[in-house]
């Protein structure tokens, strides 16, 4: 769905700031905690005290490099930190240490679904290192009109991932963000939490007459904190900018903000002289040298990425694109599913059954928190349940029941099935009597079957299953009915 009037085309580029999940901050050894008492996770360095100096966190560098490799970026052997100078109370040094003309990685790409079953490639301009600012808090002190600053977050490692303006719709933008987020989460470098601000997005957007190759005047929409709002903000801007274009109105490049209450974007500030950040090379940090062997060693730690996993699940195991998407929505879900798969590798029938069971039963109750997902059962338990079905010990319906008994516990499905008397009726003598009974009671259908309507056998199977409350072995019932009817 798109609301772009056909005469206009939207040009959208996203800048994503992702906090790196390091143990310590970018330039000091303070912990990167979330939710600690204000101003407790601080030291002279991240407080910007006079005389304190930054020392680069190698763990953050490694995470950044792995991200760059996962996004097909070139990793620059030499990059340079730069100071971005501006005054703000949450910025203790009066400058942010960032990278400017020599970032550590450039020229990457990311594939996103094009909404029509295919894929499109979005360029990644660059990825560079930054440090986060603190937080200004308003209205928390007794003194009226006073604001206070919490610097716990100051110095938290960030990477900024700058995308090319290759996106053309709100759907594109959200697809890009989802693909990007799942990669960061799969790499375990970021927890992908938009609400808490560990994954933040600024949207650059302009519209132009369809077919034009020029760029229109763009606006930037800052810090939109959910996929839903990114979508809404873009739709809103496309409509608004198209309206301005229709009316022939021009405007200056500026920054806007998503107003959740009003469900619209609002003007924030004009980009002009105040945006001269006076970047210059950070003299307190030597250039960052990333030598080949180190980068190559890091490349070996990049796991199979969600896209590759999806391709493997669909092409090698015959799962549908939809199933593959659901089962890789979080890397830990993918890992769970693959542990179940591993019991009978390269068996498409097993894969299909496992996929159905995990999707319909397990995922309903799985809880995701950042990098971790808690499951109600272990993959081993699921394998055991499904093995009981394969062996004919229990029916598919019983499998669901059995799952109900074992979830949230470490109980053995085999034991529980036994305890609950769930073994399916496979005693041919007992079942044959029941089959005879059902055939005798339904002469019309028997007549029909014998008259060539062999499809009616399903009716008889159903009747037998009903009598056994689903515990009959359906394959055996099928054979026996043929014998009785034949």
């Amino acid at each position, binding site marked *: 769905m798109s609301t772009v009037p056909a005469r206009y085309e939207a040009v959208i580029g996203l800048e994503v700031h992702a906090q790196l999940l390091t143990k310590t901050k970018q330039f000091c050894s303070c912990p990167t905690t979330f939710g600690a008492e204000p101003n407790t996770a601080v030291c002279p360095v991240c407080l910007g005290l*006079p005389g304190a100096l930054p020392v680069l966190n190698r763990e953050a560098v490694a995470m950044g490099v792995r991200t760059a490799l996962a996004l097909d970026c070139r990793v620059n052997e030499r990059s340079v930190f730069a100071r971005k100078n501006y005054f703000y109370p949450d910025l203790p040094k009066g400058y942010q240490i960032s990278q400017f003309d020599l970032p550590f990685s450039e020229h990457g790409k990311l594939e996103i679904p094009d909404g029509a079953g295919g894929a499109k490639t979005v360029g990644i301009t660059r990825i560079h290192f930054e440090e986060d600012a603190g937080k200004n808090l308003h209205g928390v002190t007794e003194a009226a009109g006073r604001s206070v600053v919490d610097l716990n977050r100051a110095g938290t490692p960030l990477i900024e991932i700058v995308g090319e303006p290759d996106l053309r719709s709100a759907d594109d933008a959200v697809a890009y963000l989802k693909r990007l987020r799942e990669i960061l989460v799969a790499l375990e470098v970021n927890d992908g939490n938009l609400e808490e601000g560990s994954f933040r997005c600024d949207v650059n957007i302009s519209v132009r007459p369809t077919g034009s190759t020029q760029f229109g005047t763009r606006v930037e929409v800052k810090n939109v904190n959910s996929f839903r709002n990114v979508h809404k903000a873009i739709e809103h801007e496309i409509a608004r900018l198209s309206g301005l274009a229709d009316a022939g109105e021009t405007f200056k490049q500026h920054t806007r903000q998503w107003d959740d209450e009003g469900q619209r974007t609002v003007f924030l500030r004009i980009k002009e002289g105040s945006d001269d950040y006076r970047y210059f090379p950070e003299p307190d940090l030597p250039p960052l040298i990333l030598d080949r062997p180190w980068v190559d060693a890091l490349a070996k730690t990049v796991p199979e990425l969600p896209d590759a996993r999806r391709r493997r699940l669909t092409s090698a195991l015959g799962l549908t694109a939809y199933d593959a998407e659901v089962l890789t929505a979080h890397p830990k879900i993918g890992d769970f599913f693959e542990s179940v798969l591993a019991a009978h590798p390269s068996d498409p029938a097993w894969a299909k059954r496992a996929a159905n069971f995990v999707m319909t039963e397990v995922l309903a109750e799985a809880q995701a928190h950042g990098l971790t997902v808690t499951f109600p059962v272990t993959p081993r338990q699921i394998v055991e349940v499904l093995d009981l079905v394969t062996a004919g010990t229990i029916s598919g319906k019983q499998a669901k029941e059995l799952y109900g008994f074992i979830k949230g516990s470490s109980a053995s499905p085999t034991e529980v099935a036994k305890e609950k008397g769930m073994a399916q009726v496979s005693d041919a003598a007992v079942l044959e009597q029941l089959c005879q009974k059902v055939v005798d009671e339904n002469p019309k259908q028997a007549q029909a079957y014998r008259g060539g309507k062999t499809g009616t056998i399903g009716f008889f199977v159903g009747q037998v299953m009903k009598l056994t409350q689903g515990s009959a072995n359906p394959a055996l019932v099928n054979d026996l009915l043929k014998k009785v009817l034949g």
Partner: protein
Amino acid sequence: MELLDSSLLDAADAVRAGKISARELADAAIARIERDDTHAYLDFDPARTRAQAISVDEKRARGEALGPLAGVPIGLKDVLCTRDARTTCGSKILEGYRPPYDATAVAKLRAADAVFTGKLNMDEFAMGSSNENSAYGPVKNPWDKSRVPGGSSGGSAAAVSAGLALGTLGTDTGGSIRQPAALCGVVGLKPTYGRVSRYGLVAFASSLDQIGTFAADVRGAARLLEAIAGHDGHDATSVARPIDEYVGACGRDPKGLRLGVPAEYFEAGLEPEVKASIEAGLKAFEGLGCTLVPLQMPHTKHAVATYYVVATAECSSNLARFDGVRYGLRVDPGKDLEAMYGATRDRGFGAEVKRRILLGTYVLSAGYYDAYYTKAQKVRTLIRRDFEAAFAKCDAIVGPTSPSVAWPFGAKVADPLAMYLADVYTLPASLAGLPGISVPAAPSASGLPVGMQIVTPAWDEARMLTLAHAFEQVSPAKGKRPARS
């Protein structure tokens, strides 16, 4: 002889040998500082100094091994963070500020059992060449109290000259150790950039700042350097290189060393009396068996301009943190954030600091960056190459530290450019990150001190000290001290 007029090494040895106590030395320093009329100290607390001395004596009494600076009274430039004393950087904006931590160099001196006499006066944020930019009033030159001590480490140089400490730490960005050492007639040593950790040194220009040492003699300055040198995990620009035996390098024979003499250091602007003293000094070097090698260092003339672009650019950013939000002075007109920033910085910074912040902000601004900052970096590289070319022909470069002797207060205040030229001979080595030392040469006719500067290749402080020590032994300034008050 007064305890404070012995050499740093003799005093340290006497304490270690138990001949005198740290307490006696501290009391001698306290008595001198209490009588001091040079205004060398900004923070002086006799009780704190005594307590530190007593703890050194107690350590000795317990039979524990004492550090190489045991009981030696050492003063610290007020730009070095100290957890037990105010650190103001000579500025109103940090009046009363107490850092929660020690600079690495300070912590190393503590570990070496030094006793701190207090914090020494300086040009505000180390910006100045005469000490007249201290927000707390200038230091007077102990040789002539109507004259400046040089800067920015004027307090550090004057304290040693006046016998108010046996050694001091200063910082050198463009000559701030060597120039005041020359003007006050003491030894001032700036190590190679990266030799001493800058952690806890309140930054003026990060790519140039370096902590160094002052003492009455070369061996004293060398002993202090041994204590503070070395790689520090808190400073990414400090370098892990072996530290030589600097005291051991003093006393080696300099015979056969080739000394480069740049023609550019003897051109117009050099006071005749200084020129005469340095030329006599060059002859003395020849007498020591060194050969003089005439040199051209064609980019010397661009050093002042280059320095004032690089240093001001960095300072405009480094001093942004003094915004009234977290520490130091806050002036809040009660209007808005911008007004608080403006009022705080207007009231807190002196004229020279504001001038340099403005200049630095300008050279980094969009549209000017390439013309100034980028160009200055290129010229900086050319200046470095001048030295590389020179060191292909010689082992060290010698010449005047300062073009003039100490001048009367007020003589250059109205003319910042004339003031900036006071550092014309020290700036090139700073821009190239090289070690330099100023050693007293023959005084001027009026008896004012003159300094001989010796610059060696990076990391070769040992050879620099060998030359400095040999020169010191034959210098007419040897043993000369200003009258004690």
